[in-house]
């Protein structure tokens, strides 16, 4: 069985400027995979290449053995529907209520009856602890609530893969931890593969099963593996990063 996500020789950039080159890694089904690195190393660019927002300059991304960027537009859209994406700021549609935000993918891509969609929406919002906030608009929510609502929307179609950009940015440590626990719970219960783009150390070490470290200076990946292993006996640069610069 092929790896759930397979990235081969991926090079991304803007025009002549290469952000990251030669990325090679695989994500197994049911893993929480952490993409880490300092500011500006290209974590978000990698995420955009994974979810289909920005074509890589070179290389391939495959989901369960199926090539993503080489596929036709229709096939790529079909693959995209198996992805749930949580953007950094939530990216909730500001003119829709929370319930409408979560319901929209269901209305678009399933043939479910309205009542059933309403039930699913209520359940997803309850799952992220936002039961009863159905009729709220995103502008009426706190940052943490927006993140959780974004997660509810990302999970609307029961995706095989959740891609999460900076889950803990802008959240207090306890809220961030609860979000981490929620992600782990979803993985454990539903078997979802999770790709987390983050530089939050606590989160990386707590929930990561596997990881890749993108280096901003050399524009490529310099380490891959379990974050705890990387901390104990990994590359010096990665240990430096994982200990906030305290590693000897």
């Amino acid at each position, binding site marked *: 069985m092929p790896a759930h996500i397979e990235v081969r020789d991926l090079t991304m950039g803007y025009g002549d400027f290469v952000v990251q080159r030669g990325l090679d890694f695989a994500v197994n089904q049911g893993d929480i995979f952490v993409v880490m690195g300092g500011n500006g190393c290209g974590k978000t660019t990698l995420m955009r290449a994974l979810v289909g927002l920005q074509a890589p300059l070179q290389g391939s991304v495959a989901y369960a053995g199926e090539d993503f960027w080489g596929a036709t537009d229709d096939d790529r859209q079909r693959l995209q529907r198996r992805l749930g994406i949580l953007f950094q700021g939530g990216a909730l549609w500001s003119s829709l209520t929370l319930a409408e935000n979560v319901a929209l993918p269901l209305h678009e891509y399933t043939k479910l009856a309205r009542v059933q969609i309403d039930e699913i929406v209520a359940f997803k919002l309850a799952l992220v602890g936002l039961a009863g*906030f159905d009729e709220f608009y995103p502008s009426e929510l706190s940052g943490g609530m927006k993140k959780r609502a974004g997660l509810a929307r990302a999970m609307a179609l029961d995706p095989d893969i959740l891609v999460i950009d900076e889950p803990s940015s802008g959240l207090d440590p306890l809220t961030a931890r609860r979000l981490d626990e929620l992600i782990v719970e979803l993985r454990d219960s539903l078997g979802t593969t999770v790709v987390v783009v983050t530089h939050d150390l606590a989160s990386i070490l707590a929930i990561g099963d596997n990881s890749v470290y993108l280096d901003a200076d050399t524009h490529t990946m310099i380490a891959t593996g379990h974050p705890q292993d990387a901390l104990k006996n990994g590359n010096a640069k990665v240990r430096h990063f994982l200990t906030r610069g305290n590693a000897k």
Partner: protein
Amino acid sequence: MRDAAAWQLDVRAAGADPATRIIALGGRWCIDQNLPAAASLKEKLAGPVRRIGFDTRGLADWDSGLLTFVAGICKSCARQGIEIDDNGLPPGVQRLLALALAVPEQKVAGRENGPQGLFAQVGAATIEFWRGIPLMLDFLGQVVLSLLRLLTGRARFRRRDLWLEIEEVGPRALPIVSVISFLVGLILAYLGADQLRLVGAQLFIADLVAIGMVREVGALMTGIIIAGRTGAAFAAQLGTMQVNEEIDAYKTLGISAVDFLVLPRMLALMLMVPLLTLYSGVIGMLAGMLVSLTIFDIGVFEYYTETLRALELKHFAVGLSKGSVYGAMIAFAGCLRGMQCGRSAEAVGHAATSAVVTAILLITIAASIMTIVFYQLGI
């Protein structure tokens, strides 16, 4: 996955205990399977049932479809005081249900939902309108104070912004102002020719077009064009800044958002709209001349001297002052709606629309008042 058959649902008694029911779930319980609603079990669970258990040994595959179904059963059972034994469910379902039911539903007071009656809507709109007036006057006051600060040299804004706005508002509007003014001049000439032919005074087309364009129509058309082009842009710019909290950022730095953002836009329009009005008048007169020359056989020189005879300095003064006032009103409406913008994409669109509507309304009211006043004063 063992079996991809459709869902199966069965409710049976648990041995000899009449108060317990077992819900047996089998097959695929996924959202693409046209699943039953939890309410369909209502009759089967009526009567003396006190406990419910689950049997999911036949379950092949599940997702949110199963979760919402079971959650629905849990909720209705909780209302009827029926005990739920979730041990029969897959461990993942148990955990997710616990998670979803852990946080009680927030009861938020005062949220108005559902459709309102006609009277309520009219009432709400009226209240909204009356509440808008003091806000508008408040903003007007702030703008006037800001203009006073400008006169005393204490207003803080970037000179560069002013030049950028002037370029955006003035030169870049020339193409559209040219086209509209030419066509309006042409229409005026035809309209005049038709009426003046009755009395054989076709040469007076020149008077009509010159005075009409310079005094009235040039300013009005320019005002409406700029309201649509620039007023909407101002509202969208400031509205987006409101969404991104940029205006709050100015405020917290102690920078007056009115000085910094509204003043340069106001000045740019007050300077450029009169100039565009003048330009519009010239283009309109050229159109009139073209029509006279080609259709009604009036010579270029004749038309030119007649135009010069008709035009007096006061006509230009009237046109320029109208242009200035319209410019101020467009800037006022655009900035007002932008600053009042809510925090969503929809609100930005609403601000832009509302800015154009407000600007055109204000322009038309001002045009009427000024025309009457100038007539009474004999200017």
